[in-house]
């Protein structure tokens, strides 16, 4: 599960951290889904076992939060994200076709049971993502790097220097708390000593990577039962529809069939926007008129996906601010309704986060996670100067996998998230890495 071109020559610059980026052990889904025997009869609504699922999730998450607020042991530990363990019966159908092969750098993979062991196909070492992200982040981190280097050309590490360092991190939107944490790490054992700019960069990258490495995971699709339902949620204007378009392109290219559901029944022309993406990716788009009930649409879309024998159903939703109770309730309803078709669905709830968003992104994840059971993130708009440093804080608190980053408006501008690259880009370790990556 390692990227061939990634492997080797980074040793000089980086500390002996795990080099395994994409393949940190996959979150163990409950062993083998004992009860998930696909059923013959396709759709008859199942008696839903726990209609209160969101409630249950909520109480879970509250505990989580409390633990995390005070405790910063995350810096050292990498917990796997929580996974649900029950596997009730569902109306999902068994897949009756051979599974497509997915190259390793696709940013998603099929779940182990379904996956064919075929890794001989070395992924073509195309690096647009690396270059583009580094370019993008490089622009911003050149500031950052500049300031770090100027601070640390050769100075003794005292309070003033640490303060400056903290400021630099804050400017990358890491947030005061996280910035202080990392600053503390930096001062540990080094306080009062002379320190050079490159060492600071290294420590910074190390710390960021340590936090993000456990969350940099590929999106896992379980195609034993199809359709695999992906619900995409997020605040207005964070790039849900665009991300869906790009993701659909990625999946269809890999031979995975996709049905799209235009669940944004509020915003003007959102349906048309998704339809255009459907045309581009040859995917059927299930849509209703504006103002229609999104939950009902999701319900129908599930049937269409089953009828089409689609592998994946991606459901768009209207953007909503997390503090609008009634809109969040609507989201709960969509999930409730989907669970009537398949108690496991939505298998993946993706939340899009805008890289330009500041500390509020934390709140966004908090609430969307509690209400909609978000279990994966996509950070969009990393092609600007925004650094998306809030991801470090979110990664440490929620440990939600980050599947992709959006780095542009083009159909290919959705790249797998790689902790090391992200960390290095923020820390400004560029030139050395670029050479390494290219070889």
């Amino acid at each position, binding site marked *: 599960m390692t990227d061939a071109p990634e492997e080797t020559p980074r040793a000089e610059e980086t500390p002996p951290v795990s080099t395994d980026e994409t393949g940190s052990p996959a979150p163990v889904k409950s062993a083998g889904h004992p009860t998930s025997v696909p059923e013959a009869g396709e759709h008859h609504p199942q008696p839903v076992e726990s209609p209160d699922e969101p409630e249950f999730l909520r109480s879970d998450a*509250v505990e989580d939060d*409390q633990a995390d607020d005070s405790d910063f042991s995350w810096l050292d530990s990498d917990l796997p994200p929580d996974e649900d363990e029950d596997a009730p019966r569902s109306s999902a159908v068994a897949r009756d076709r051979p599974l497509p092969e997915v190259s390793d750098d696709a940013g998603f993979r099929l779940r182990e049971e379904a996956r064919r062991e075929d890794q001989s196909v070395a992924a073509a070492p195309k690096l647009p993502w690396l270059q583009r992200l580094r370019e993008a982040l490089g*622009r911003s981190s050149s500031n950052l790097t500049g300031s770090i280097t100027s601070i640390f050309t050769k100075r003794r590490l005292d309070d003033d220097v640490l303060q400056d360092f903290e*400021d630099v991190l*804050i*400017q*990358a*939107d890491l*947030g*005061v708390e996280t910035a202080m944490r990392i600053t503390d790490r930096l001062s540990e054992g080094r306080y009062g000593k002379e320190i050079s700019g490159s060492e600071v960069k290294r420590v910074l990258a190390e710390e960021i990577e340590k936090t993000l490495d456990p969350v940099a995971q590929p999106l896992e699709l379980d195609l034993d039962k199809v359709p695999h339902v992906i619900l995409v949620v997020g*605040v*207005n*204007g*964070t*790039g849900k529809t*665009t991300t869906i*378009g790009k993701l659909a392109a990625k999946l269809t290219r890999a031979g995975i069939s996709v049905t799209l559901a235009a669940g944004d029944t*509020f*915003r*003007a*022309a*959102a349906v*048309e*926007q998704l*339809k*255009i*993406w459907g045309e581009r990716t040859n995917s059927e788009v299930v849509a209703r008129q*504006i103002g229609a009930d999104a939950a009902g649409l999701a319900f129908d879309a599930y049937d269409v996906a089953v009828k089409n024998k689609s592998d994946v159903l991606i459901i768009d939703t209207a953007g909503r*601010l*997390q*503090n*609008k*109770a*009634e809109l969040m309730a609507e989201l709960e309803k969509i999930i409730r309704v989907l669970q009537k078709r398949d108690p496991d669905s939505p298998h993946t709830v993706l939340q899009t986060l*805008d890289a*330009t*968003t*500041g*500390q*509020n*992104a*934390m*709140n966004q994840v908090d609430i969307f996670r509690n209400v909609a059971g978000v279990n994966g993130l996509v950070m*969009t*708009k990393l*092609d*600007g*100067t*925004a*650094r998306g440093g*809030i991801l470090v804080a979110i990664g440490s608190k929620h440990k939600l996998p980050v599947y992709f980053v959006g780095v542009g*408006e083009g159909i290919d501008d959705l790249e797998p998230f790689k902790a090391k690259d992200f960390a290095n880009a923020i820390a400004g370790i560029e030139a050395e890495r670029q050479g390494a990556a290219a070889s």
Partner: protein
Amino acid sequence: MFDSLQDRLGSILNGLTGRGALSEKDVSAALREVRRALLEADVALEVVREFTERVRAKAVGAEVLKSIKPGQMVVKIVHDELIETLGSEGVSIDLNAPAPVTLMMVGLQGSGKTTTTGKIAKRLKDKQRKKVLMASLDTRRPAAQEQLKVLGEQTQVDTLPIIAGQGPVEIAVRAEQAARLGGYDVVILDTAGRTHIDEPLMVEMANIKVRTKPHEILLVADSLTGQDAVNLARSFDERVGVTGIVLTRVDGDGRGGAALSMRAVTGKPIKLIGVGEKMDALEDFHPSRIADRILGMGDIVSLVEKAAENIDAEKAAAMAKKMQAGKFDLNDLADQIRQMQTMGGMGGMMGLMPGMGKMKDQMASAGLDDKMLKRQLAIIGSMTPKERSQPDILKHSRKKRIAAGSGTNSAEINKLLKMHRQMADLMKTMGKKGKGGMMKQMMGGLAGKMGMGGLGGGMPGGMGGMPDLSKMDPKQIEAMAKAMQQGGGAPGMPNMPPGIGGPGGLPGLPGSGGGVPGLPGLPGKKK
């Protein structure tokens, strides 16, 4: 998540005697917290630095009034400075040019340009009786032009017919022509979202500007933006020279520090704020509200306005009458609980309340949430009409029946009744006091947006609701300080109605009586 700045400063500065002038040392200690509060509110670091220096200059040596804590003094200075930086109110869109006046909207992707375009068009059409033409120059995002067209249909504003294959500059020129020929007063150009480092697109934007000579160039920016706000505002301003800023998503629960950042680096006024998804959710900018928010003092005014929007005016008027007569029965209580639910429940309201951050968590851990409201409604719903209008007749056997009917127990019923009684008492006293001015004020407030004045309902002596620190005189601050000591409550909400526990209740909602109901049995904030 965030404590209010005032709480924090309190804990730092409480140790000081607080007599005489603020010393250099006091100020430095305070400013560290101010800095942090601003950073947590996403104010850009460079802006924070300048800002704290200005505050330092003003604060050192400032007289601290007797019985005011130094922390409060610092908060006032910070608050005033924030408002000054954010700029004066009421800079509206300037249409003072020969028709057709061209407005150009610019900004990042997803900042809300198209929605804002629709909102501004509707506002100009409805409020200023302008004939408006909208044109989308966004040829990049799928269906963007379609989106504006649909918005035009919704708001009954004309949009430029879409011609496929035209570039943004061509469309802009065509829009100009169409506006001139069609006798339009205003033409709004909605450009594609672009990152400010995307050179070709920035050049394109500059070209559009050269060709159309817009009278106003509005930068549309997300109020949730982080540290990057300075970069983007500066870049857009340098490239095309924006004339004003429109902040969107101000109805979110972000602290809105981006407003300060962008205003500080560009010096351009924030002209409008977007406060919702509907087409009329566009408001004038009020610096003091954003200032309160940045400082974590909540947004009382917005809360009140939200209340005013959601409360049925007729019901409220009836309620006010009842209150005047000193009557407040369980039917009224049920009404109020329902109103609370429509306002987004407890969570939504708490989010807007100052100093309620902690309480929110406490409440959540104590299991006090919107379910409680439901339960209370169930209790009231299980009563006979007679019981609702005369709660006094409720004796043991009736309570037992109600408990069975509502799935609760008599303790919960008693709690509800106690809350009701306390509220009723409060209504009575208010009814007496308020015969003249206050009642009128409250009633008047219902018609339009509530001002500060109407908030006075629950407050003794008719003091303003959420104290606008900048306008308060020292005496009021003193009173506030005292009240805070007594109640340990949120700032500015002294002597809240009982039954709402320690931390100061919600302010009197306009016309619905003092203190919002439905917070019975809140655990008093443990001090």
